[in-house]
């Protein structure tokens, strides 16, 4: 099976990947606490970005409410842990199930008539907002005052309950991100992946080739939402507090999509590169703003908006494609090549 996944991948790409992976695995040895925290954030967004990319980049459906699945994943496992002492790994299947159920409902409502992307996008925002307000009144999970996980001492690393030092969390999110990467690669080459891309490019033409577009769009949203839930689990156990206003906030959904868009929708590396760039720049900007005393609320987000604007206008396919061409990592040729 590994041979099948590796078939057709240029050798220098594999070498590059191996080097990057090695650096990431060894990072905690060289990185200070601050850098480690930043890396965790980068990998977190790289993970979710890949999950979102399946729905948008592969299948062409724009979801602007992905924070819903993160939130559901977070709250489910957090509530199970706080109220019943059920550990995050046991709670994860439940979290995934609930996320998938939501995704399926949203997909069904939007895809049933094959109506255009705007219906779907609006529906995703509406569901996330609905859930945000709903959770504000959901007292069993703390309502608007929030849900807090008991914070034990940090000296022991308890992988089973995800209690421990940042290093442990780092390797968990690294494993998740790497796993997602391999999964996306496998999906792209499978029948499902081909069908998704056909649907993304031209749904009508896809249908005339025998593709049941409704079914495959549903598969896309199910996989995407299910894959996003574990990020929520990570979020809950890493930050230890959840508030509906923050967790389901629309800006969360926008943060999720910024990485893949800047990196390159529909590509494998896009979400990862985008996450690195965005978080890196964002941290740098934060330093700059604090240094100049311009650290007003909203300044950083204006920066996000400007970045997004720039990418959308100048690099509509993201930063990755030109880099890929430079590194000669593309499989396809154009007549000029």
């Amino acid at each position: 099976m590994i041979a099948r996944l590796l078939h057709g991948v240029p050798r220098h790409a594999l070498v590059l990947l191996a080097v990057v992976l090695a650096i990431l695995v060894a990072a905690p040895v060289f990185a200070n606490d601050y850098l480690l925290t930043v890396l965790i954030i980068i990998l977190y967004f790289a993970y979710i970005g890949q999950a979102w990319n399946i729905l948008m980049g592969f299948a062409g459906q724009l979801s602007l409410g992905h924070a819903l699945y993160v939130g559901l994943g977070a709250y489910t496992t957090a509530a199970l842990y706080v109220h019943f002492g059920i550990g995050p790994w046991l709670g994860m299947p439940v979290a995934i199930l609930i996320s998938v159920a939501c995704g399926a409902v949203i997909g069904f409502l939007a895809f049933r008539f094959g109506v255009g992307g705007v219906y779907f996008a609006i529906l995703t925002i509406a569901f996330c907002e609905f859930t945000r307000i709903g959770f504000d009144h959901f007292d069993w999970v703390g309502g608007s005052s929030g849900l807090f996980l008991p914070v034990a001492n940090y000296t022991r690393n308890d992988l089973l309950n995800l209690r421990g030092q940042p290093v442990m969390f780092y390797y968990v999110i690294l494993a998740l991100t790497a796993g997602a990467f391999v999964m996306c690669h496998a999906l792209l080459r499978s029948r499902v992946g081909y069908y998704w891309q056909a649907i993304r490019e031209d749904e009508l033409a896809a249908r005339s080739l025998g593709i049941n577009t409704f079914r495959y769009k549903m598969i896309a949203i199910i996989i995407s939402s299910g894959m996003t839930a574990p990020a929520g689990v990570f979020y809950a156990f890493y930050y230890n507090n959840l508030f509906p206003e923050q967790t389901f906030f629309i800006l969360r959904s926008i943060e999720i999509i910024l990485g893949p868009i800047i990196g390159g929708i529909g590509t494998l590396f896009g979400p990862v590169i985008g996450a690195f760039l965005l978080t890196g720049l964002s941290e740098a900007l934060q330093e700059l703003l604090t240094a100049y005393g311009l650290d007003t609320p909203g300044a950083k987000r204006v920066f996000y908006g400007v970045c997004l604007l720039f990418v959308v206008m100048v690099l509509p396919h993201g930063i990755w494609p030109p880099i890929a061409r430079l590194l000669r990592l593309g499989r396809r040729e154009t007549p000029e090549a």
Partner: protein
Amino acid sequence: MPADIYLNVAISGLLTGLVYGLMALGLSVIFGVVRVVNFAHGEMMTIAMYLAVVLFAHFGLDPLVMMLPIAAVLFGVGYVLQLTVINPFISRPEHSQFMLMVAMAIIIVNSLLMIFGPDAQSVQVSYSFDSFAIGRLIVDATKLYAGLAAILVAAALFAFFKFAPLGKAIRACADNYTGALVVGLDVKRLYALSFGLGAACVGAAGAIIVLIVDVTPPLGPAYTLLAFVIVIVGGLGSMPGALLGGVLIGLTEAMAGLFFTPSAKSMFAFAILVLVLLFRPQGIMGKRLT
């Protein structure tokens, strides 16, 4: 509770709904003609609202009086925006358009946050606490004026599209882009005009609604979502539908606020959205989808 209270709340919701309808009307024009999904719609409304607040705070000018100037400013903003930034995106894939407008929305909301801060700002005119007694009903003066102003602006817009040559030209563009080109209409300019008109609607709605609602930056995205819900419920592409949808949502919000908690009122708008998508996806007044 006595029936009077229900009726008062309903009327209140209806009047607010008319202003929502005006806002959604702007979106209907933009989407119906230029076919751009304006995710910055609510944010444009908050610009108008803040304009009204500033004009009132510094010059004591009544928002109702400033409705037309503010609408004109927003018209200009929309016109220029369409002509310069948005036009190249017309032929681009849908998600590119979304992203462009989302980027604009983010910039607008957070710029407003930086300029005005997160606290709510409001306008207290001399009649802010007045009300009229019509029979057994009590109607807030601000809401009554707001509703009337919204109807007037909407009527003016309808008249424009029905009778003015420019309005008919715009409708021609919307119906048949290529045909319009062939006939010699300057489609680019008409698109800009349409976006400007849609923005003007939003501008007017924003100036009016400041009498009823306090403005904070996060109101932008909330109104964007509301505008889309209204337009989908009323029927994508139907201008009367936008007004009808607005009234419906206004009513729902008011009644929900009465029977449940006020903070849950937008949940009912979403519930209606889901119901519409389930049973009548083309909206109340929309055309049947193939």
